[in-house]
């Protein structure tokens, strides 16, 4: 077992949660490789082999476009999010490429409401370890909470 690799993956996931929850949001795409695939997929679709994702970014550029849309075009109620990422397990390692699975939940706080769970599910990640830096080559967010409480504005 490679404890250092385990620690590096957990560190990346912690950084991931930090940029989404506390900002800066612009740092989120930096955690991905230039060519990457990010998808948020309802579990029903995932289990049935249906390809539809509610968020689908096929490059770091598309991630940046999503960030800019959140910041400048989407009209939404202000909110705080808090990610909790657990049960991190590293799967297959092949050269500079490795798989990792983890569980997540995201608590959402809207201005006039008590906190509630926005989303709960799994991260199915493929990471690239290049020049001592781990980045997401692919990230699939598969959410069990298929009935979304209203809107998902920020990436999960």
């Amino acid at each position, binding site marked *: 077992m490679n404890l250092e690799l385990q620690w590096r993956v957990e560190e990346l996931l912690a950084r991931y949660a930090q940029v989404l929850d506390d900002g800066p949001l612009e740092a989120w795409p930096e955690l991905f490789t230039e060519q990457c695939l990010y998808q948020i997929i*309802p579990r029903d679709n995932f289990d049935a082999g249906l390809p539809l994702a509610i968020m689908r970014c096929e490059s770091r550029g598309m991630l940046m476009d999503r960030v800019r849309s959140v910041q400048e075009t*989407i009209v939404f109620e202000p909110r705080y999010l808090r990610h909790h990422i657990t049960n991190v397990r590293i799967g297959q390692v092949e050269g500079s490429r490795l798989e990792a699975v983890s569980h997540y939940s995201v608590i959402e706080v809207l201005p006039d409401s008590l906190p509630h769970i926005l989303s709960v599910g799994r991260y199915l990640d493929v990471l690239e370890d290049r020049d001592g830096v781990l980045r997401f080559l692919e990230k699939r967010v598969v959410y069990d909470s298929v009935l979304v409480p209203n809107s998902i504005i920020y990436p999960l």
Partner: protein
Amino acid sequence: MLTWPEGGITEVPYQIYTDPDIYAQEMARIFCGDSWAYVGLEVEIPEPGDYLVTNIGDRSVVITRDEQGALSGFANRCAHRGVKICRHRKGSSRMFVCPYHQWSYNAHGELRGVPFIRGVQQQGGMPEDFDRADYNLPRLRVTSRGGVLFATFSEATPDLETYLGDTNATYFDRVFDGRALTVLGYSRQLIPGNWKLMFENIKDPYHASLLHVFLVTFGLFRADQKSQVRMDPSGAHGLLISQRGAQKQSADTQDIQSLKENFTLHDPRLLDPVKEFPGDATVVMQTIWPNLIVQQQSNTLALRQIQPRGPEAFELAWTFFGYADDDEAMTTRRLRQANLMSSAGLVSADDSEVIKMAQDGVRPYASDYSSAKGVLLMGGRGREDENHMVTEAAIRAFYAHYRVVMGL
């Protein structure tokens, strides 16, 4: 129950967004009355014995294909103790067995089996005069057009073609043109607002050119584009038809403060629409009474089913689809453009957010009868078809029909 404001269809009382009694009447008169409710796609239940579970209004129903392949359906609650019979959203079964006391029904909701009907060892059992035929489940008539399934609880609902009217049937057939459909996936969201706010939103081109900065920025939908709103004679159904423009500022877009002229995409593949339907329209949003929105926005095809959950919430159930003969590039394009839609949509998240804000705004004022009403005066007081976007005529038409059905 409620006195409608003097302004008629130009005014909407807040009470209809919050009142539980009005809501109960809506479920009975609108959703379970003389209407064809969207319930699914034929491709979801292709084989004899297949079924799906959905809602008409807030009532759970099972839509089936019987052993002969005919479409049918019934209320998803056992005649015995009211228990929900089907727990899975989809499946295949010849009989439908209630989990509680195992009363069993066929694909038409007809009661076939009652365990211990004659008792056990001469004890118990149903009374002599018990007749299974008295306990069949409320049955649905189910019809299909272009592979899309509609159901009604009422024997009086006219055939679907008559129900839609010529114009709406023609536009419906534009998307459902007989080609086999492929489901790309589902997306579900629970929107904390009254269900009618969703219809108002889709029947309102006025907001689209202001609220949806993303659409406006990329010329996908703008007030200065050629467009129309068209209704059926009753006002129940509506069409919002528009043509895509270019990303540039014109004199008419000066009012749109939110236009981001310098926003260019890092990855333009997100918006790479290709023409796939005859005619000039690039966006057709069709609203079909009482629960369906058919969306053709560039190459995103989706059905949005409205399932009310009490007066102050509704589920919006999205089915994204394409055609069986789509090539890989078209499927990818549809999946990419889906980024604009549903709960995380670059465009439609604006709508779910603003619907919540509308409900939050209306709720505390709904009981203030003298002033608690919304205004629908854009484009005049009429409810006729228009050849521009700066109008609320389609919402006025919707409320004209609503008032007739509700007796308000």
